[in-house]
């Protein structure tokens, strides 16, 4: 279970990333943020976002039409 949850279901590129970035600012270092999205492009985008920003993508999974990404704030 992540420390915080962000629901961006129904939003399209680039909003899931922008909202996640904003939410991550309020996540204490080492804590996790779970992002729930319906944009299929978000799968690749969250991988790239985490690699570039130095945060850790702990989990990326799909349940029906909902994608879930767990990001550990490490930067």
């Amino acid at each position, binding site marked *: 279970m992540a420390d915080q949850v962000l629901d961006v279901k129904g939003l399209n*590129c*680039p909003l899931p990333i*922008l909202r996640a*970035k904003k939410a991550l600012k309020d996540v204490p270092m080492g804590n996790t943020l779970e992002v729930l999205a319906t944009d299929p492009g978000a799968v690749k985008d969250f991988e790239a*976002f985490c690699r*570039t*920003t130095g945060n850790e993508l702990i989990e990326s999974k799909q349940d029906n039409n909902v994608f879930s990404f767990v990001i550990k704030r490490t930067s």
Partner: protein
Amino acid sequence: MATDTNTKSMSLIVTKGSLDWAYPPFILATTAAAMGLNVTMFFTFYGLSLLKKKLDLKVTTLGNPAMEMPMFGMHIGMPNVVSAIPGVDAAASVMMKNLIKKKGVASIEELRDMALEADVKMIACQMTMDLFEYTPKDMIEGPVLGGAATYIETATKSDINLFI
């Protein structure tokens, strides 16, 4: 973050001011800023109108064979001759804005606000301001006025430079 010497940077020249062309620069600028890059946008010619306080962006179907709108369960293109009929571009613009809302795509106003919030630097082209007779009063607060040299100085220091 901004003082980190490893910080990457991106600059964009924004030359077009229609609803469809406004998206790529603002999407890339906001995303790059979210990914930790220092971003500068240079607004020139028709792109400058994207800095006006009140935006009323439109698309045109004229000369755009790739523009196919999803309608009646299929994709419908617009022959150029149809574009000339009064009201067609206005209708296409309304249709595009409805699609944007329906598909959860941000509005340009929203993306522009997010860019400013993320400290994206914006340069408004002084020459274009003079050419099209805009005054700073017509424009949002935030952008600085500058010219080609101001942009080039930024571009020489940027990792990514885009012309849109």
